């Protein structure tokens, strides 16, 4: 899943900052993708909200 997220992030980064900068950010984007995967998989219920 994080690979898919990384692809989406890379595509956005290329659009926003250009291909060269997106390439420079590759390891950061991978870390962001891994973090987002965890965030999206976390168990949250509506009842968790106060």
């Amino acid at each position: 899943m994080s690979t898919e997220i990384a692809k989406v992030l890379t595509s956005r980064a290329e659009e926003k900052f250009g291909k060269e900068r997106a390439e420079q950010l590759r390891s950061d984007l991978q870390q962001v993708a891994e973090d987002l995967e965890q965030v999206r998989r976390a168990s949250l219920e509506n009842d968790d909200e106060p």
Partner: protein
Amino acid sequence: MNPESLTLTAASQAIRDGQLSPIDYVHALLARIDRVEARVRAWVTIDREAVLAEARRCEEEARRKQFRGPLHGIPIGVKDLFYTKGLRTTVGSEVFRDFVPSEDARAVQRVKAAGAIILGKTVTTMFANLDPGPTRNPWNPAHTPGGSSSGSAAAVAARMCPAAIGSQTIGSVGRPAAFCGISSLVPTQRRIGLSRTWPLAWSLDHVGIMGRSAADLEIMLDAMSEFAVERTRRPKAYRIGIIRDYFYAHATEEARSLNDALANKLGGAGFQIEEARLPAIFEVAPAALRTIIRAETASVHEQIFPPNRHTYGPRIRAVVETGMLIDANDYVRARRIRRKYQGEMAKLFERFDALMTPAAPGTAPDLSTTGDPVMNGPWTFADFPTMTLPHALGGNGLPIGVQLSGPPLQEGLLLELGKAVEAVIGFQAQPSL
């Protein structure tokens, strides 16, 4: 009397007793800065004339036995992201190179109202992030003082001021305090106002205090707190939960071993020490924390980043740029995880008065980094008040700290416990400068 060696507590009492002149105190600290600053590089701006003028005012008032508050005549260092009226505030960046605020930050207002003299502005890493600044560790200049409150920690450790104000979003106070062998307190976020403080990430930013004893931190907190600090009666025996799993996995063998030795020592001194276990949600907390920081930092820098990106350090630039790519839905999920995490973590205090971990993975690393905030982030994320105390020296002669966290808004309990722990530790070492 050697004024530079006085703790804030001792200096405050000496001023009240008429044994220490605020002018002499300031002269002694400025002379100390002249002697050691070239090796430490803790300061960005010092307005000596303004400092001396303020010291003269404090002295005149002290002669008349008029004391503005518990910090009367005490020179304080202020991290260079808190606005200071008439005094340059650079936020560690070229973008703010010539910025002179017209008002003080709330935290600065509070210490001034209590009688403090703003000795100067201390180095922050660029925009309070992870790009190392010029400051060196007073214990060994080949090592980082930590960050982002690098100058505040180094200045206090180097005896250039008795206390300083810092800020923490992940580990920007606790980590430099541990690396520099001083004490620190990061209270619950709403305890000290953040207005006119340049943000890193609004929902996670905290004002922090650095000093050389738990009693110093208490005096500073009383002066800076927006509402009274509740005092609690000392229990028969403090119950401390030592958390090993996640924290020991990120610590050096030396840090683990020294932390265990301290736990044993505290146990022998009558503290109840038991293992505490983290809730399952702890596993996702670091990812949620980083997600919130990226998104909020990108928002903070939305206007100033595009025309100034070439001046940004590589680490802060990457945070801003990756933050611009995060969806609202992911940000909201991360905030919801935080809320759930805070509830689950608070249950630990049903069994314990405080939780104990190493304050940093080990001693200060070299100057290529400001060190890893991995030990501090979980507590900032929980918004639990957290104290760091120095307790040992590593094999390389650099300090090691212990971190104690208490229930939200229970800073009074944490400070009392900190004083009791400090008495058992008996840490006396100082950097030789």
